C-alpha cells in the first residue's frame, strides 16, 4: 500500500474562464490499487479526469505519473506513457465497427503480436464484443458501448486506467457486470484504476480508498471501508 504512488496530484486548480471548477486538489493513487473519486453533479470529477489526461490545462498544480511530470503534456503523449481515460458517456466512434473501435484503441501500439494478444484478453473479458465485432458501434446497447469503451482503452495496454462514470445510463443488471469486470481488470492484469462515480455504494465496495469531491474541493477522504460508515457521507450519497 505504501509504495511510491503511481499517480500523484498536488494542488491542482482548474478553471473555465472565471469559474473555478477544481481548487487545490491533491491526491495519490498507489500502484495496483482501485481508488474512487466521488461527488455529485458539478463537483469537478470529470474536470479532474480531463486535466489528468491532458484534455484540459490546469491553472496551477502538478500531476506526476510514474515519477514524471505530465502536467503540460498533450493527451496523445500522456496516453503513450500508459495512462488511459475512458470518458464519460460511452464515447465510442459511432460510425466505426466494434473491431475498428478496438483497433483505434491500439493506435499508438506498434507491436502487432501484442495487439492481437490484448484483443484476445478483451474478448475473454467481454465475450459480447466478439459477437458484435462487425456491428457499427452506434447500434450497440448502452452497456455494450461501455464495454467497448473500456475495451478500447485497454487496447492501448495502459498501466493506469481512469473510468468516468461507467454506470451512467446503463441497465442495473449490467452495472454489476461492469463493476465485476473492473475488479477483474485490476486483479488479473494489475492495472491501477481511478474510478469516478456517482454510484457511491458500488464504487466504495470495489475500491480500497476514496476521495469525496464537492464544488471543486476534496471534503473527505479515507479507506473505502471507513467512508461507507461515515454518517455525513451516508446521508449525502449512500441513501441513508
Amino acid at each position, binding site marked *: 500500500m505504501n509504495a511510491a504512488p503511481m499517480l500523484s496530484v498536488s494542488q491542482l486548480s482548474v478553471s473555465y474562464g472565471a469559474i473555478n471548477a477544481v481548487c487545490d486538489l491533491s491526491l495519490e493513487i498507489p500502484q495496483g490499487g482501485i481508488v474512487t473519486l466521488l461527488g455529485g453533479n458539478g463537483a469537478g470529477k470529470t474536470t479532474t479526469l*480531463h486535466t489528468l*489526461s*491532458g*484534455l484540459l490545462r490546469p491553472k496551477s498544480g502538478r500531476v506526476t505519473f510514474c515519477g514524471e511530470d505530465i502536467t503540460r503534456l*498533450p*493527451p*496523445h503523449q500522456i*496516453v*503513450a506513457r500508459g495512462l*488511459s*481515460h*475512458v*470518458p464519460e458517456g460511452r*464515447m*465510442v*466512434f*459511432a*460510425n*466505426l465497427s466494434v*473491431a*475498428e473501435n478496438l*483497433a*483505434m*484503441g491500439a*493506435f*499508438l501500439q506498434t507491436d502487432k503480436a501484442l495487439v492481437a494478444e490484448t484483443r*484476445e484478453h478483451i*474478448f*475473454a*473479458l*467481454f*465475450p459480447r464484443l*466478439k459477437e458484435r*465485432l*462487425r456491428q*457499427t458501434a*452506434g*447500434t450497440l446497447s448502452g452497456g455494450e458501448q461501455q464495454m467497448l*469503451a473500456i475495451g*478500447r*482503452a485497454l*487496447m*492501448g495496454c495502459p498501466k493506469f486506467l481512469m473510468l468516468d462514470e461507467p454506470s451512467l445510463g446503463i441497465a442495473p443488471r449490467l452495472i454489476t457486470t461492469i463493476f465485476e469486470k473492473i475488479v*477483474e481488470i485490476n486483479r488479473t492484469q494489475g492495472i491501477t484504476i481511478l474510478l469516478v462515480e456517482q454510484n457511491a455504494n458500488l464504487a466504495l465496495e470495489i475500491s480500497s480508498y476514496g476521495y469525496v469531491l464537492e464544488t471543486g474541493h476534496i471534503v473527505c477522504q479515507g479507506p473505502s471501508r471507513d467512508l461507507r460508515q461515515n454518517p455525513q457521507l451516508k446521508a449525502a450519497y449512500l441513501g441513508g
Partner: protein
Amino acid sequence: MAEIPQSRAPNPKSDTPVPVWRLLPRQHLALALGLVAAVVISRFSGSIDAYLVDVAIGIGINVILAVSLNLVNGHTGQFSLGHAGFMSVGAYLAAACTVFAGPRLLGAAPGPLAHNLLFFGALLIGGLGAAFAGLLVGIPSLRLKGDYLALVTLGFGEIIRVIFQNVEVLGGALGFNGVPAYTDFAWAYGWGVLTIFTVSCLVNSTYGRGFIATHDNEIAAQSIGLDTTRYKTVAFAVGAFFAGVAGGLFAHLKLSIDPRGFDFTRSIEIVVMVILGGMGNTLGVILAAVLLTILPEILRPVAEYRMVLYSLLLIILMITRPQGLLNFRFGKTRL
C-alpha cells in the same frame, strides 16, 4: 470469470481497418482506368458540342472541390466555409505561373508537351500555395469548434478575396485576363480521379480511420492517443491542395478570373454539394456535384431563381433524407 470462446480466428480482412498498401491494388487499378478514360474521352471531345464539353469540365472541377471539401467537412467533421478562398489562391497562383512565367519558360516555338508540363507545374504550385494557405489558417483556428471554425474560415475567404481585389498585377477588381486555355476534359477528369483516389485511400487506411474517429468523438479520439489537431490540419491542408488545383483548372477554363467569382456563395455551393451528397459519403458527394452542376444549366431559362431552387431543394432534402442522397449506413449525420 468469462469464458474464452473457442471459435475461428477472426478474419483480418473485415475485422480490422485495412492498411494502406492492402487497398492499393484495387484502387490503383481504378485510378489507372480513370486516368486512361479521361485521356481517351478527351481525344474525342473535339467532335462533341463545345457547350457540353464545357459543362462536363465544370462538373469535373466541382467534383474535385466537393470531394476535397468532404474530407474536411464530412469525414473529419470540421465545418469549413473557406473552400472558395483556397480555390482562389490556386486559381491566381496557377494563372500567374502560366501568364508571367509561361512565355519565358516555353521559348519561341513550344510543342504541346511543353505546354502540358507548364500547366502541370502551374497547377501543382497553385495547389501547394493553397495547401500552405490552409496550414496558415488551419493551425491557429482548428482549436476552434463548429460554428467558430466556420466563421474563421468564412472570414479567411473574404480576406483573400479583398487581397486579390487590390493586387493590381493580378488585375485587381477588373479581374485577371488573358489566361491561356489549357484546361480540357483530360485535365479536369484526371485530377478528379486523382482527388477521389487520394481521399478514399486516405480515409480507408488505418491511419485515415483517425479522421472519422476525430469526427465521431474528439474527446474519445484524444483519450486513446490520437493527435486530433494533426488530423484536422492534415485534412485541411489536403482539402485546400485539391481546392487550389481545382482553382487552377477553373482559371484555365474560364480564361479570366475575377475575385467576385470566389466569394462566399461559391463556398456555400460546395458545402451544399457535400451536405446534399451526405457528409462523409464520397459517392454521394460526387453525385451531388454532378447534379448541382447540371441543374443550373437545365434551369438556365430561369437562372435568377437558381438560389431559390437550391434552397428549396436543400429544405426538401433535409426533411426527407437528412443523412444525404446516397447514404444508407447508420448514423452518418446526427441532427
